[in-house]
């Protein structure tokens, strides 16, 4: 499939070199999101590489109070990505970690803090990168279903991501976007929270699913796989039929594999 993406920067200067930060959840649970990200970035005129020496952004250690291990992981990420024009990740929470928290991690180490700050300036979540930096305003994708969108907390509050996914979804042929009531209320994932406090998490995710059901949309999208695994897992447990995809999969026209939590028969 040839590149049919229009972007405001596609014809000016050399292609930006983008290091894709895959994220551990995409890498292990749903590689399709990673390939969708690559396609979107390449179609928009980027040269995409996937540094081998990456695994995780360090959030599990960080949010568990193990700042020492977090620093080690952060140093690995910084070293692997600092020579690229951009670091792009299909996740608001991982991007927020690298952008907002890495510099603070090295408060007492000027050298590493400097490197962290340099990287933070070139670090973007995928959808906002496509929209805000590359100026993508047309997509070669269709998705003939009604869709509703969940705003994940870190993407929304740390990075201000709200308009961009909606603007790009509007460019997908056949897609009908319905706003989700309380789209900006936490889904109850919260990293280790959802397994440490499963009952509270259950209450929150059930509320989220009730709101999704109220829209009558056939598909739920979001920008963070953690949220989506949580919501899809609970949907299946409750017997719901809504399809759950990462927004990148739909934008890239690659939502043709079974949705999150679905079997091969699409159920």
């Amino acid at each position, binding site marked *: 499939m040839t590149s049919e993406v229009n972007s405001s920067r596609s014809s000016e200067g050399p292609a930006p070199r983008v290091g894709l930060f895959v994220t551990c959840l995409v890498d*292990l649970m749903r*590689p399709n999101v990673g390939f969708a990200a690559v396609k979107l970035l390449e179609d928009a005129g980027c040269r995409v590489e996937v540094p081998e020496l990456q695994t995780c952004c360090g959030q599990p*250690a960080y949010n568990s109070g193990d700042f020492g*291990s977090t620093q080690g992981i952060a140093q690995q990420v910084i070293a692997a990505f600092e020579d690229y024009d951009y670091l792009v990740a299909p996740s608001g929470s991982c991007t927020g970690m690298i952008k907002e928290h890495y510099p603070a991690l090295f408060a007492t180490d000027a050298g590493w803090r400097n490197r962290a700050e340099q990287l933070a300036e070139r670090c973007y979540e995928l959808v906002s990168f496509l929209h805000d930096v590359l100026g993508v305003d047309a997509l070669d994708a269709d998705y003939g279903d009604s869709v509703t969108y969940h705003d994940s907390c870190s993407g929304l*509050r740390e990075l201000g991501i709200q308009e961009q996914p909606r603007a790009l979804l509007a460019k997908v042929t056949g897609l009908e976007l319905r706003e989700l009531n309380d789209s900006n209320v936490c889904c109850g994932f919260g990293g280790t929270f959802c397994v*440490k406090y499963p009952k509270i998490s259950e209450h929150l995710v059930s509320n989220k699913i009730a709101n999704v059901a109220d829209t009558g949309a056939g598909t739920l999208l979001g920008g963070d796989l953690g949220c989506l*695994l*949580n919501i899809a*897992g609970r949907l299946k447990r409750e017997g719901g039929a809504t399809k759950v995809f990462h927004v990148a999969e739909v934008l890239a026209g690659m939502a043709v594999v079974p949705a999150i939590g679905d079997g091969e028969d699409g159920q």
Partner: protein
Amino acid sequence: MKSTASEFKKSARVALVDPDLQRAMGFIRGGFVEKRRAVVDRLPEFDALRQVARGIKEHTLQNLDFYLEAYEKRVQANGGHVHWASTPEEARDIIVGICKRAGAKRVTKGKSMVGEEMAINEALENAGFEPVETDLGEYIIQLAEEPPSHIIAPAVHKTKDQITELFHEHHARYGYTERQTEVPALVDEARQVLREKFLSADVGITGANFLVAETGSSVIVTNEGNGDLTNTLPRVHIVTAGLEKIVPTRDDVSTLLRVLARSATGQEMSVYTTFSTGPRRTDDLDGPFEYHVVLLDNGRSQMLGNEFHEMLRCIRCGACMNHCPVYQSIGGHAYGWVYVGPMGSVLTPLMVGLDSSGDLPNACTLNGRCQEVCPMGIGLPGMLRQLRRRQYQDRLTSRTSRAALAAWSFLARRPRLYRRIMGAAVATLAWLGGRRGRFRHMLLAGGWTSVRDLPAPQGASFQNQWRRRRGNSEP
């Protein structure tokens, strides 16, 4: 108040299936949350005011010793007394002493969270006095013998029906025998019952939203009028306040009032905002003859300048808990102490001890809504993470979670080993997931699968597929 924060998990589980509590918490959305949003939308200068307010508090904290002494001088010049207390015990002794010297019997109380913090009611009762809560919410929980579940609306966990039963049971002795089911009648009955208490009180104890260094005044922000009846009718007025309530001038208070009322109840101004300065003047026709301020430290001074410093900016508006999805689900009692929700999850470990309140910093998704609505821009999620850091350093976390975390961090820093091991693991899980694509049960993942299905991994990891497709041609 004795902390039961160590029972958080059990209390939370009970709260989640309590239909009365869930019904009561449901009113918060249309109440506090909606009202705040509407009133903030109406004020274009709201964010600018927040910045100014934050600056006022920061300036004051940086010079706290100066402002405390300046405040004390002014109170004394107006004929009032300032008492200093390092601990809740010292504060209790001071207050009981004042009441004894006043020959008191009945003590009316305006709402004071610091009063709860020092457990003053129990101390007053033990010393033979009769403390009477007069804020309607505090009165309700006093009748129910329960702790507050919210710092602004202490009885927010009660339904109207529960209040009906409480009044029916406790007001009979005053001659009110009819069961009142409607809000106007309930409030009116409370008004009449408490009127008699107000008029016969010997001592009145109020909290303070602010203490003003410029004039030696204490400020209360209320709607019911009970605070004013408490600080005007008795012979003695006692103000209880934390050190951090100091604000330099009346003009500074004016700025803070604008963000406090809006953030707390969605009002532009509370019905009664009162500046109290000393005892009655010589020719006054009413007012107390004695004015005492009890300043409580209880760990606040330790928070200055460290990673929890920002918490001292808190003006006790309650916006954080109103917007917290966890608080909305479980209510305030699960937090086990005076301060609840996000701000309670920071203060309780600091004031009562992290080892007996270990769940509080962890029962948070770090979603950040609290910080977003905080009028003082307090970085609550960051401080909860700092508490988790203390737990990790002090080895207060469970051995299993430390081991799991250590294993993950070990692998995460060895990408090639990670790729091989995790790659094999997910490929296996994908195969096990088979055609169904998800698991109802998963070994070692009970926390997940007790509540959700676990979607199966798609297959080989992204990195492994990428290496195969692109033939290892990259760094």
